[in-house]
């Protein structure tokens, strides 16, 4: 257990820290972009789906940053610890921070005295934001280019602004329209993308 703690701490220190700092700025300056006072359910959903959603992209996309350097990746692969054991603590860390951020925003909105269903919005937000983040995660896992990860995730977000109808049950911004049933698809999508991201990444690498 201690081993994972150490490796993850090194990851945070060397690569992840600036991203966490950005998340902090994202939270601190949120008041300038969104309002937390007396929100109706559609408005509360909008805050989550259109603003807080970026936290998912920001947290899950850069998890493979150390391995962008092929030499580091090869070196790590030569060690006894399996790669997924290296990735898993990072994913859990990102997940933890993500849940904290979402819950914090929810707390702010509840304190602002809104009129919406906290439970279903929270569930939907967790799943949707995780799903969006896992898209960035998957893209950067497969291509080993963090920039591509961000690109795909941001493109997915933008496409949903006008073209959600093409994406079926995986479309974002559903809760804004009062549709709360998508969370299970988002959750399944996220789990599938997170798991297959790691698998595809290491498989491809093994073949050379």
């Amino acid at each position, binding site marked *: 257990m201690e081993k994972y703690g150490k490796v993850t701490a090194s990851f945070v220190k060397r690569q992840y820290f600036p991203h966490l700092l950005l998340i902090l700025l994202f939270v601190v300056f949120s008041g300038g972009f969104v309002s937390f006072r007396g*929100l109706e359910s559609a408005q509360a959903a909008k805050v989550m789906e259109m603003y807080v959603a970026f936290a998912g992209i920001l947290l899950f996309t850069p998890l493979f940053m150390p391995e962008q350097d092929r030499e580091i990746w090869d070196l790590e692969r030569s060690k006894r610890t399996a790669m997924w054991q290296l990735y898993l603590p990072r994913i859990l860390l990102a997940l933890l921070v993500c849940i904290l951020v979402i819950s914090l925003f929810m707390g702010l909105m509840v304190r602002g005295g809104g009129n919406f269903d906290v439970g279903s919005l929270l569930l939907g937000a967790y799943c949707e934001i995780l799903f969006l983040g896992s898209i960035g995660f998957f893209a950067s896992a497969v291509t080993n280019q963090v*920039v591509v990860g*961000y690109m795909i995730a941001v493109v997915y977000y933008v496409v949903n602004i006008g073209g959600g109808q093409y994406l079926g049950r995986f479309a974002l911004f559903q809760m804004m329209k009062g549709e709360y049933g998508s969370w299970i698809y988002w959750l399944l999508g996220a789990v599938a993308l997170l798991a297959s991201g790691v698998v595809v990444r290491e498989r491809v690498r093994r073949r050379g």
Partner: protein
Amino acid sequence: MFGALFFKECKQVLKSLVYFIYVVVFVLFITSQMSGDSAVRLQAPEPGQSYYGTTVAKDETLIMEGTLANLVEDINHNSWVTYPLGFYKGVTLTDRETEQAKAILERCTGKPFEVLLEEMAGHFGQYDQSSAEEMDAAQANYRVSVKEGFTYAEFEAAMKEICGLVGKGSAYEKSSYEYGIRIPMTYELAKEEFDALCEKDRVTRAYMRLFCDYAGIVLAILPIFVGVSRALWDRRAKVQQVMFSKPASGARIIVSRYLANLVMLCIPVFVTAFLLQQPFCYKAQTFGIRGDGMAFLTVPGVWLLPEIMVVLALSFLITELTDTIVAVFVQVAWAIGSIFGADVLVGDFRMRLIARWNTLGQTTLFSSLEKGFLQNRAYYFLLAVVCIILTVIVYERKRRKGGSLVWKNTER
């Protein structure tokens, strides 16, 4: 030497994954968005139609009536849209603030809020709310008349108070309502507009403006990634040292690289523009005029080129300066802010990065706004040039410092 470097850079762009994604996303986005605006729907107006679309009027009375109508709806829903930092922010008022807003409204109209609500319901009741066109017409026709003797100056003061309640960047800002009010067109106006579309815009130019409207959205975002990934590539491939030791000047290296990326980014834009324009060239013929065949070059050239230029140049500059992907966060925030920041989707250019024109036509309105629009585009063009000059300076500085300006160059 410059030409050779340019073509080699183009080849590099072609081989990059980010560029491939750019082309696919751009083409899919544009074709799916534009599919609703086919040439078939463009018709000359006939007398006796119930609705001819809308136009923008700048008459003071109309502005007051339209803005107050808007105010009635906003108070009623207690859902206020503002863009304080160019980014959408929904605002709701407390009960006390709502009462204050109602009082201001009553001062302007001389009628209590309840009466205004009844009038509103009466107005919308006249229309068939199931058709989009009728709904548009209902919205465009909705007016709330002011109290007798109520002056424009008084109106301005009242709106200032509303702004005090809802915060910055709402539709009640002077700069916002001054833009004008949407009014329904009569047959005469519609005919006039259509003639302008044919004569002044020769059909294709108007259509290309709509193309630019959609393309401008994605082009505020996608080139960021192309630029960041190219500028970071040197560091990732560990070629900086050897490049630095060559006689080629930083200006040559950066400018040829920039132009190569710019040209490659522009190719799919102009190609799709050319292809999408063809049905409208044909359509123009059926109206008995020759469409402007060069519109696919001239309109996006002015509209989109400065935007692509500045987005790409800024991503080069930030990335060379920091050697990180921070440009992605800064510029995506700017772009998304600009997308949500447009309070009207036609006109309202000001200094926005993304110039919206979500309509086919309104030629006369565009003519009246053209000067401001060109100023906006010239500004971004110059900004891009400045960014590239700065990038060259940064590059030369890195060269003399032995590598990155932010990372430690501890290697000895």
